């Protein structure tokens, strides 16, 4: 069903008011006058100081975009974040991520590759045409969103990295810099944040190397300037603000799996039949919905089973959670 061709990018069809908190809209309208609103997205005006106005991206439609879903408001996607480098509360990243410098930025590629390389962010932005991919996003904490990401399949980048056949896994390392991320050591995790995928998962066309959302470059708090999005896995598998990609022979050590292996498996595929030890994964709370509509059923592989189930054929998903 989701392979259906989608119409126009959300960035073009979503009316500005629809994804803005009404109150913020009114406040901004009062503060800046109607002329400004006509020309600019108002949520930008309520952005915290230090977070620069987002640049537009040129995006094309993708047949891999999920259709028939209600997209979460921009305001919520950018003000309800787990990004421990900027604090552990959901509102912290939006407040604190202004100190992240996304230029200059480069991504080092190491390990089992033909030769180690470094990609500049501007090279990465131009590597392939940017696509808009609307994906469901399911956090292991049982909340969810629907986000119009912008990027291209990670496989395109991996091909450019020229990994050796011996590379079986790919590891992503996020920025760990207490100067730019002053809150980082308040969270007791092993830094830098590390995540990983099996090579076939990383090469799957749904896996997205992501540079933007809502047709604009990623706001800092959403993992700028470049992150991964793996829509059928719990959100923590999708590393943010990536500075290094390593191709390795065996399963890499990953941050949350190290922290609490019984709670966060290496695979962490969205699975309503395998509960988190502390809460049920059968349902989820949709962010931005009114309280009585928030509770929604969780879909196997977050609704992407048709495309990804074959990656796990023959595997016991209760053991390999």
């Amino acid at each position, binding site marked *: 069903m989701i392979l259906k061709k989608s119409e126009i990018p959300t960035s073009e069809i979503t009316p500005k008011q629809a994804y803005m908190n009404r109150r913020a809209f009114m406040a901004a309208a009062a503060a800046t006058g109607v002329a400004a609103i006509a020309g600019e997205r108002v949520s930008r005006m309520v952005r915290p100081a230090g977070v620069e106005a987002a640049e537009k991206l040129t995006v094309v439609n993708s047949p891999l975009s999920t259709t028939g879903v209600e997209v979460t408001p921009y305001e919520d996607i950018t003000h*309800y974040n787990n990004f421990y480098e900027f604090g552990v509360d959901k509102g912290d990243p939006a407040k604190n991520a202004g100190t992240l410098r996304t230029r200059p930025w480069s991504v080092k590629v190491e390990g089992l590759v033909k030769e180690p390389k470094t990609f500049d962010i501007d090279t990465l932005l131009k590597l392939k045409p940017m696509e808009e991919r609307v994906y469901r996003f399911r956090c292991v904490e049982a909340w969810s969103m629907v986000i119009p990401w912008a990027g291209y399949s990670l496989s395109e980048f991996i091909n450019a990295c020229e990994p050796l056949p011996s590379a079986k896994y790919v590891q992503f390392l996020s920025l760990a810099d207490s100067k730019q991320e002053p809150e980082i050591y308040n969270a007791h*995790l092993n830094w830098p944040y590390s995540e990983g995928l099996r090579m076939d998962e990383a090469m799957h066309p749904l896996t997205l190397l992501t540079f933007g959302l809502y047709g604009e470059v990623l706001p800092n708090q959403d993992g700028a300037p470049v992150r991964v999005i793996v829509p059928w896995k719990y959100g923590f598998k999708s590393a943010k603000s990536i500075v290094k990609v390593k191709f390795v022979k065996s399963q890499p050590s990953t941050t949350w799996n190290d922290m609490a292996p019984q709670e966060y498996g290496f695979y962490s595929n969205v699975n309503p039949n395998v509960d988190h030890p*502390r809460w049920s994964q059968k349902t989820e709370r949709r*962010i*931005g919905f*009114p*309280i009585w509509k*928030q*509770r929604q059923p969780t879909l196997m592989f977050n609704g992407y089973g048709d495309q990804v189930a074959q990656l796990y054929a023959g595997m016991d998903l209760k053991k390999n959670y």
Partner: protein
Amino acid sequence: MSKRWIVALKVLAHAACLGPVVWLLWHLYLSVTSEPTALGPDPTHTVTFFTGRGTLRLLVITLAVTPVRRLIPKLIWLVRFRRLLGLYAFFYACLHLMTYVWLYAGFSWSAMVDDISQRRFITAGLAAWLMLVPLALTSTAWSIRKLGGKNWNRLHWLTYCAAIAGVVHYWWGVKSGVRTPMGITVVLAVLLLARPILAARQRSAPSVQRSA
């Protein structure tokens, strides 16, 4: 402390305890009528933590009454607020439980049985609520007479158990690495230590006025 002052302070105490509930109901109303996100992007989570933290704070304040008036004998009148505070703690605990039954379990018995049997943080939370029930039921002057002061006091030691179970529930409920329950834990620990220390001090200085 004159009767008039007590009445005025009681009105204030009621307002302080009910104020947050009124705020919550008002935002709930707003989220129904005009602004779906009046309670933030994740209203279920907001209501859960609002009522849960409210319960623990009120429990701890209730438990602080006795040590504070022992430490400062002039504040003996504080004891007249203890029942009110304790009952509000129970009220918040009921709201918290209702939040779970409605927004998490969706009124499904099987979901609740699953949770209670499989999830220790829910078991701990339910245990805390269950411990508060007899305390609320025996909060009347009639109960104190009926049970006798000593028995009543003994029963009401359960408040400590309920507060401990509540704090354990909080720790077990948050993600690993999150330390938000630390504040309330420290306060409760201080209160737990204060009781024996103050009691010992009282024994060694019998001139200090004794009261239950």
